[in-house]
């Protein structure tokens, strides 16, 4: 809103970038980045920010896995950390990963960069609001660091009352304040995207000619806008309760502790679809482009995103089967939970059919897409055990749940995120990465991930509870395998980091405008794009008409060959 009236400092066409200038080189200096209104630069800053958060959350994870390597049957001995420190580790791990990394990672980092270019426009509808979202993210992160340095956080990422309001001795207020602010950052990103998609689609791009990535972001944005305010008010109530003991959730003051859980999951269940929908959206693009095939079942994939977003609002109670909520409510929530599985299944089958009779490229983005399908499948299917009433009563709050959500969040979202990062890396940086190394790294990570989390299913169904600093010796072997897996995954991710960073150096190969032969609009502009995204306004067509692009060995990229010659799309 703040933006609509003000003339932007960026002068239009007249003062055009000199040839060879791009958004990275258009201006220099800290201020030109930190206060930029350019969605591309904001996207890059989000990328750096969220990856830093990921590394921080990952460091907590490695620390906690290392602690769990041994069952400390002799208390006080052979432990790296105290029980309190361990509790802080998993709380901070969960909170940082969820609020600082995974929720903003795809929409705010990749989405910000790609969405306007895919639309063929210069920016999102409200560039100032976009920058404000980013600044809120930074402030939220500062609050987390503040919490970290002034007593930590030991409530779990779920902040359940009354523990968080009365018993915890840590900086709960700073951390929840951080989550509250991050919530608004997320709301404003979502709001911006919705308006941009509604009001700024170019002529010719009807809703059903929109790339599926944008459909996914649209569905995500709906959840961000409709669910996050409830988290906001909930956290605010929690803060007020903790600070002034007003008795909303505290039973000793007449409050209701279970009410908090309803409020929390009303947001946090839809939030898991904020995490996965953009991931699915990336995979929809990647599978098609790297199979060199038109996407199959476009409308069903698009509509299933919306369906997931809508159904996702009505299932929150499946986190509360053991909370003491009425049997009637539990039954309804269980039944509704299964409704979300259907649109997810639709997506999986459409991806498979897209691959059928394609020309499957064995490159890094494709490796991540396939990894996504397999790992998300395991994560999604194990969600069914949890949505089923009688089995959840024994699986709830055990490592089975831990394994389930890491399969969907890490195997699902993180894999899609890395796939998307590789896919758009040439566009964002203008450099090609080393594909062989990228593939090797992704296989190392895939192996490490499965070694890490698969044993947790067995541990969990046997009864190993989660959030346990110490455990019975019979589970030590599972924990040890799991910890070894964590180190393999760490190795894989460090290889990924090295792989991407080394492409930025002098030896990195320059990227062509369209290295993969994608037909969405971002491939029509240079890599990296100019400050205004396009020198020549592209014409809108079918976003999956891949055969309009032919491989050009000279530039090692694809060039537009007009309308579909049958010999197109060869490598």
């Amino acid at each position, binding site marked *: 809103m703040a933006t609509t009236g003000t003339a932007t400092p960026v002068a239009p066409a007249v003062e055009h970038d000199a040839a060879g200038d791009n958004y990275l080189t258009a201006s220099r200096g800290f201020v030109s980045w930190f206060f930029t209104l350019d969605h591309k630069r904001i996207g890059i800053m989000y990328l750096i920010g969220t990856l830093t958060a990921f590394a921080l959350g990952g460091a907590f994870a490695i620390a906690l896995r290392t602690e769990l390597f041994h069952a400390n049957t002799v208390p*006080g001995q052979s432990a790296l950390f105290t029980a309190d420190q361990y509790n802080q580790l998993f709380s901070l791990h969960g909170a940082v990963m969820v609020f600082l990394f995974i929720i903003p990672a795809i929409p705010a980092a990749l989405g910000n960069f790609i969405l306007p270019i895919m639309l063929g426009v210069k920016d999102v509808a409200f560039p100032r609001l976009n920058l404000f979202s980013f600044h809120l993210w930074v402030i939220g992160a500062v609050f987390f660091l503040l919490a970290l340095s002034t007593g930590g956080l030991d409530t779990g990422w779920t902040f359940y009352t009354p523990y968080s309001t009365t018993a915890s001795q840590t900086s709960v207020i700073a951390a929840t304040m951080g989550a509250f602010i991050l919530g608004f950052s997320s709301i404003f990103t979502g709001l911006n995207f919705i308006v941009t998609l509604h009001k700024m689609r170019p002529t010719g791009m009807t809703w059903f000619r929109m790339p599926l990535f944008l459909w996914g972001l649209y569905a995500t944005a709906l959840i961000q806008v409709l669910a996050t305010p409830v988290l906001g008010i909930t956290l605010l109530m929690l803060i007020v309760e903790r600070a002034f003991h007003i008795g909303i959730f505290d039973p000793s003051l007449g409050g209701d502790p279970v009410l908090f859980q309803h409020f929390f999951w009303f947001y946090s269940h839809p939030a898991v679809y904020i995490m996965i929908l953009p991931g699915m959206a990336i995979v929809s693009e990647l599978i098609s482009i790297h199979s060199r095939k038109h996407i199959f079942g476009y409308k069903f994939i698009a509509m299933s995103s919306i369906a997931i977003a809508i159904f996702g609002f009505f299932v929150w109670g499946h986190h509360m089967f053991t909370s003491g909520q009425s049997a009637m409510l539990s*039954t309804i929530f269980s*039944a509704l939970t299964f409704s979300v599985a259907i649109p997810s299944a639709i997506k999986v089958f459409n991806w498979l059919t897209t691959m059928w009779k394609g020309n499957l490229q*064995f490159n890094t983005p494709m490796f991540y897409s396939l990894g996504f399908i397999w790992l998300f499948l395991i994560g999604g299917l194990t969600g069914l*055990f949890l*949505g089923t009433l*009688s*089995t959840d009563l024994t699986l709830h709050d055990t490592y089975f749940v831990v394994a389930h959500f890491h399969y969907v969040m890490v195997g699902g979202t993180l894999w899609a995120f890395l796939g998307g990062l590789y896919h758009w890396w040439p566009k964002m940086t203008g450099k090609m990465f080393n594909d062989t190394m990228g593939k090797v790294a992704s296989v190392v990570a895939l192996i490490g991930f499965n070694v890490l989390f698969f044993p947790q299913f067995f541990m969990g169904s046997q*009864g190993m509870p989660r959030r346990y600093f110490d455990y019975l010796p019979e589970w030590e072997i599972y924990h040890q395998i799991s910890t070894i897996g964590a180190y393999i995954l760490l190795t894989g991710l460090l290889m990924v980091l090295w792989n991407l960073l080394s492409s930025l150096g002098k030896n990195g190969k320059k990227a062509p405008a369209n290295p993969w032969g994608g037909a969405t609009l971002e491939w029509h502009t240079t890599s990296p794009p100019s400050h205004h995204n396009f020198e020549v306004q592209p014409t809108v067509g079918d976003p999956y008409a891949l055969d309009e692009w032919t491989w050009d060995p000279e530039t090692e990229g694809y060039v537009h060959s007009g309308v579909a010659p049958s010999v197109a799309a060869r490598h």
Partner: protein
Amino acid sequence: MSSLPLIAQAGNRARNLFFDVEGSTLAGDIDNVFYFILWVSIVSFVAIVAVTGWFLLKYRARPGHEAVKTATHSTSLEITWTVIPTILSAAMFWVGFEGYMDLKQAPSNAYEIQVRAFQWGWEFSYPNGAKDTDLHIPAETPVKLVMTSSDVLHSLFIPAFRVKQDVVPGRYTSMWFESLSLADLDGGVREQARTLADTGYVELNLFCTEYCGTNHSGMGRTVYVYTPADFEAKITEIAKFMIDPAIPLAEKGARVYAGACNSCHLVEEDAVKIGPSFYNLSRSIRDGEMIEFTDAEDASLVPDENYIRESILYPGEKVRKGYPNQMNSFLGNLDDRRIEALIAYIKSLSTAEAAN
């Protein structure tokens, strides 16, 4: 993995890769629901991975191979892969729902035990007035637990019975189960558990599964399953224990310690879990050594009975130097008789040395 028992076989209730021993009348049903979903999952997963694998071989990019233009949508296919998962998931919901109703409806003749959870332990109270910190139950009898918490949320979980229920302050929640016979339960339930033949009872795990602070993982206790006759004897013994004049006070105190204190305090010299060692405390009392505090009016004193009593009831008043102010008050949880017994026990730790 060779003996992957995907379908529970009759008579084989032992612990396996997926589950703790099948210990309650309903556990078998729940496991079967689990195995049903597991089979559906395995079949879907293997089928989908096989298809991708096959495509990867057949359609991989290679010289001379090209993508073929195929139809880009097919309503009949979409309907197929919408309807099949819908049917399967409806079936899952239904079997889960049936099992859940059984789990929710306790038989009216169930034997009732009151449960109070606190940071960080449990108090199980029996109709005859007996109280203990482990759970004792009769086999082959429906048992209903009526639970509440005195501080934050906790959750009671007995893996062998496949039951779990949150314990909420300010309200009562309940759950029920019926243990199978001792012979059915036997079979290496826990790695370190004593065997049925030695003891005449079976030990099962009990956990707290709702995060409740520092010692959440230390709220694990034991479920002792007896024959109904042995069970009566046991709770009678427990009920008498605290008031039996023949039993030395320190011995009673040892039992109080095991239930209330040992999740944080140890009785070995210099051993520290969360709070200070009781042995060291005992020695300070014996030898008249000073102990030091932070956040207290006096920086140090020589501990005595009053100090112990105060620490139990108002732990925040004098916080030992080098330890966090973390203990919860046991006001209302431990009556005077128990506190006296505990004091006697603590004092005995260093003085009984010579005698033993």
